[in-house]
């Protein structure tokens, strides 16, 4: 199950972070997302090591923590999407398609003329779309 998705701006500022658990673990998830930024940076700076090509936005599994798997995705504008999941066997293609949908939702949200770039995404529609996407993947 997907426990957390987040959008992090190109200055590593959180734009959107939403957890989908009932427990009060917001802080923990914040930390996990925050930490994964280091890994993303590392991936981006050493693309050879990570094995992904430069052109791909999907960064793959960032790191496995004890209970979670963290996946990353980097847009062309250096906005990072981070997905934290508890599923231990996740297929890359699923995550890829998740990020694609998520990216589309994000683009819709920031295309809103009232959205200030670099500020938190407060769109309720975005939140709804994201939870729909997450919900559709939670069933698998």
């Amino acid at each position, binding site marked *: 199950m997907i426990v957390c998705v987040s959008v992090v701006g190109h200055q590593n500022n*959180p734009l959107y972070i939403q957890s989908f658990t009932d427990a009060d673990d*917001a*802080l923990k998830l914040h*930390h996990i997302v925050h*930490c994964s930024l280091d890994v993303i940076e590392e991936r981006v700076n050493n693309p050879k090591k990570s094995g992904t090509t430069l052109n791909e936005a999907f960064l793959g599994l960032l790191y496995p923590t004890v209970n979670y798997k963290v996946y990353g995705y980097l847009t062309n504008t250096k906005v990072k999407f981070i997905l934290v999941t508890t599923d231990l066997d996740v297929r890359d293609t699923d995550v890829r398609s998740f990020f694609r949908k998520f990216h589309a939702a994000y683009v819709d949200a920031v295309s809103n003329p009232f959205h200030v770039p670099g500020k938190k995404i407060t769109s309720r529609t975005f939140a709804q779309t994201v939870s729909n996407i997450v919900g559709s993947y939670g069933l698998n």
Partner: protein
Amino acid sequence: MVEPVNSSLGKMLLEEVSPVVMVLCTPLVEETFVKNGLSFVETLKPFCNFSNIDVPVRTSGDQLYRLKKFTLRLFYASDIRQPNIQVAKQRLEHLITQAGEKDFQDLESDPPQIADILSNPESEIAPTWFQHYNKELIRTLSFSDHEAFDHPVACLLVVSSKDEEPINKFVDLFNTNRLPSLLNDGAMDPKILKHYLLVHDNQDATTERTSKVLSEMRSTFGNNECNLLCTNSSKEGNIEHQANPWASFKSDVSADKLGCALTGDDIVEIKDLMQEFASRHVIPYMEQKVRELNQQISATRKGLRNQIKNLWWRKGKDDVPDSTKGSMYTFSSTESQIRILGDYAFMLHDYELALSSYRLISTDYKLDKAWKHYAGVQVASHLCNYVSVEEMMGLAYFISDQSKKEAEYCMENAFSTYMKLGKSGFQNSTRCGLWWAEMLKARDQYKEAASVYFRICGEEPLHAAVMLEQASYCFVLTKPAMLHKYGFHLVLSGDHYKNCDQVNHAIRTYRSAISVYKSTTWSHIKDHVYFHIGQWYAIVGMHEVAVRNMLKVLDCGYQSKATQEIFLRDFFNIVKKTGMKHEVVGLQLPVINMSSLQVIYDDHRTYASQASALVEESIWQSLEDDIIPSLNSGKSNWLELQSKLLPKKYKESNVCVAGESVKVDLEFRNPLLISTSVTSVSLICELTPNSDDLKLVDKEPSSSSLGPESSTEHNQGTTSGFSSFTLSEVDFTLSGGEKKLVRLTVTPSEEGILKIVGVRWELSGSIVGVHHFQSVPAKAKTAKGRKKNKLTPTDALKFLVIKSLPRLEGSMDHLPETLHAGDLRYLVLELKNKSDSPIKNLKMKISHPRFVSPGNNEEELTTEFPDCLKKGDGQTIVQHETNRTSSVFAFPKDISLQGDRSLKWPIWLRAAIPGTISLYFTIYYEMENVSSIMKYRTLRMHYNLQVLPSLEISFGITPSPSRLQEFLVRMDIVNRSKSDYFQIRQLSTVGCRWGISLLQPVDTILPSKSLLAGQALSCFFMIKDCKKSETEEDKTMSLPPSQTDVKLFTQDDDEKLFDIVNSPLASFHESERSCQGASDQVNPNTVDFILISRLAKSSNPSAVPDLPKILSHHSCHNRIRSSNPLSWSLDGPQTIYHDFSTSLCEVKLKMIIRNTCDKLATVSIETNDYLPEAAAPSPSSGNQSGWRYVPTVTEEMKLTSDVMGSRLGKPPSSMESSPPFIWSGLSSTKVPIQPMSTTEIPLQISVFSPGIYNLSSYKLNWELSEHENASSSSSGTCQGYPYHLTVLQSE
């Protein structure tokens, strides 16, 4: 990369993997050394590290190499055993606590900047005590059975010269009972190198006895194995050592006392002794042993033959059940021997040999493992042996700078195997991990090192905390630094520290973490860190710092309500604990919206109300242009006058008057979800009294020019009353997320310079928030004026306080908020001057003269409104010649206000047009008897009116075709209001020129008596132009004025009509006129109407007392409109008697043509001498209506009507048979007629026989042209009117 030997791991290995010397000594020896504050081992310890021992060594090969660095480890025999885990744990804990206390002092300071951390050299990033901790941690594992490097290599037996029977003592010392178990249980060879040392205390032993004992020793144990050590040469025991060699080993005792009885010579002697011991005894012994073992092993194990044999042998061994318990590998077993060989070689820095032996034994163990799986209990210890070898192999690889991969592989293998062992292997895995991490660090693989640290966290929180912290420092050292992880691990570590009550450490880690999170927007994490560090600071009693950190958490609007409550509760608890009021600059609770800052004050401009103060200055300025006196030049204003009196410095500052308050509006917002009560909100001000010499003000006397730090004090002084200004205090409660605009005032009571510095408020009585206004954005609309002068924000909050002046207060009584269009109201303007000095020369200007008209004299109203507007009572009806071209109204000169007297002045208000109207009044006044820089002031009043639509009237006037002086008026009324009913009262024409009369009875016009909402109505009137011509004007004036009014209601016949020529209706009409049309002069032939109505029924029952009593609607410049631009009449006799026998009859006629349009008309008259057949009936039918009869006699109106009546009665029957007549004179004339003027054209006809002639056989061709060029001209033709002329035969 650092060379492996010089890396920290290299150093560590050099220290830890070095020969152990077991020390056995008598109590008297200890006694000797206790004098120095040291034990015997401690005394020797500093001299066991040889940085350049330079001993040639030859181990396995033929190659000789020289040992440079060498270390001996000295232990008491009693210490040579596996340490108790509990004790070790306590020791570690103690170490951490100590370290925590040491760091405590730094904690008060602000957290370091992240850039500083990164720029620090590597060695300074992690606290130094980590190394001690790691060392201690590794030591908890020392002296295990299978690790030969921990087995004592030599034994040092020490006896004091004071001892009885020293030789026997030596023997006793090496008694097996007291030896460590290692030697006894067979884990190691009990035959070790022995060295005998005699200690001589110079302070209290004689040299003779010592030398005697020594010689005895030498004879007993051999010359080489015996040594003498003379110590404590200093009698007084107060030698202080520069660079005390023991200081670094014993940190908890003050360094001065250590070794106080040892002279420099003693130290040199100890040094020499140890050097000799190492180089002459220990190293050669080991060397020899290595060679021995190597030979032995080569013989049995090395080479292909041996290996095959070995395999076979092993197989054979399978059959023998191994039932021995405990250590299976005794020192004599081959495996142990190889191990010893390896370890010794390692210690002698012959890593090649060490490696080869480790490899050998490793393969053995691996093979062993296969069959040992079944042996249950022994698996663990066996594995330990194996893994330990692996570990050593890795280290050997590393230190010999060989294959990196191999080293790592070995370490990882060892580590993971240890981990698999679970709890029992944990300590081993920790040590292995530490080494591994060190190894990775030496190779700059910090990230990997961090993960190793992370893996050896284990379950014990304190241990985990230290490891996590070390991991975090590794992340900083990674290139590029992984700061996010650094922060995260610090936080984790801090939590663990907190769990084991190591609050100091917890604070330290969190403090470092703050530097990571400080500049980010990860508010969730930030709040967590700040909140907890705040709590912990409070625990250790540093409340100040605690409060400082907690403050950062207060603006946590995004947190859940429960969290906010916890934050606030804890915060206030901590604040209370400090027991004092904290003044916090820039407190975020509540948030101040600086852009909302607005300063309202009165200088020469005073405001009647809040609303008027908010009006834009330019509106007032344009309004006041006329009434404010200009000084020398047109450009100068009061400011320049001021500049003559004041130093330049104050030219730019605002002026306010002592005793009059300066108001500041500020918006407070509660960022939280929980309601917060804010108390004692007040401004922070400074008032510098004017000194005699204005220049001195620059110095700003210390009494009041207090800095922001001490402003609290300053304000407190204010409340106690000595200060020269008073401040208002406001308390309010903000519920969650609420915004409130708060008005704060300061009232200076002395002259001087007043500065508004900031605002302060209290939270729960213990926290004082202070906000300084320096950071006001320049765009803030601060001062209400002088936009020309670009004021800096601080200037805008600086005021020059001048002596108190009279101030006029004004209010408009009975002013309704909503009106109907046309509503006429009577208002009273009340002006008051509370001060004793009088004011004079009052002037008033009104922005909308169309709406407002001031009365003429004070309290003019005798009868009640609206009756006062009615006619009658013998009031002299004089139309005031109101000259309203300038809308300035000057009050009578003799009015002077002072004290409690108030001036009540009537004001008429008429809502001219519907919509929202802003009315601005500005009243100018001058001060009498005040010699001040301010000569005058203005009072500004502003009111908003909502004017609802009511009736809309329009008029159509068409000329009567037959009578030039009469016009038909059609009035269209539409009730535009939503739901109000109106009654029409009266219609009047303005001026004396036009008389008006009804065409229908009043009742038929509007049977329902009131006009419903949305209803439209048309009615007809007739107006008559009373002005005949210029010559008869005086007659017109004498017409009774009652003819200009028509009453349009019937209920109350007694009610008098409204007097429209009297003020205020007349004056309003005047302004309506000027507003409704500009072509006043161009066209004098227009009619102005005033319709007076009243509201019959209002939709809004609550507004009953406010009902409009009278509404007047003005319609001006109504033109007379017709399709024909011309109107004309034919003048001539009606009946002529003529004797046709003599001659034909010539009749002179006169045609008067009026051009009713505003264009130049050219008219030509075309006469027709024959009567058209078709033309005849139509004029006759038109005859019936009575409209086509133009009265010929114009002098007497009555007579005309008589004639008209008589003619109407008997229409001529024989029109068709009328004989022809001839138009004589000009048959065609072209006459230009100026707009709105008349011309007379003489006409003549010749009649040949008596009869009745219809003189309609002419046409008027007209042509209109705008200007001289007839490009845009229009033209047309008019058929003549019937005009019947009766010609009779004269008798």
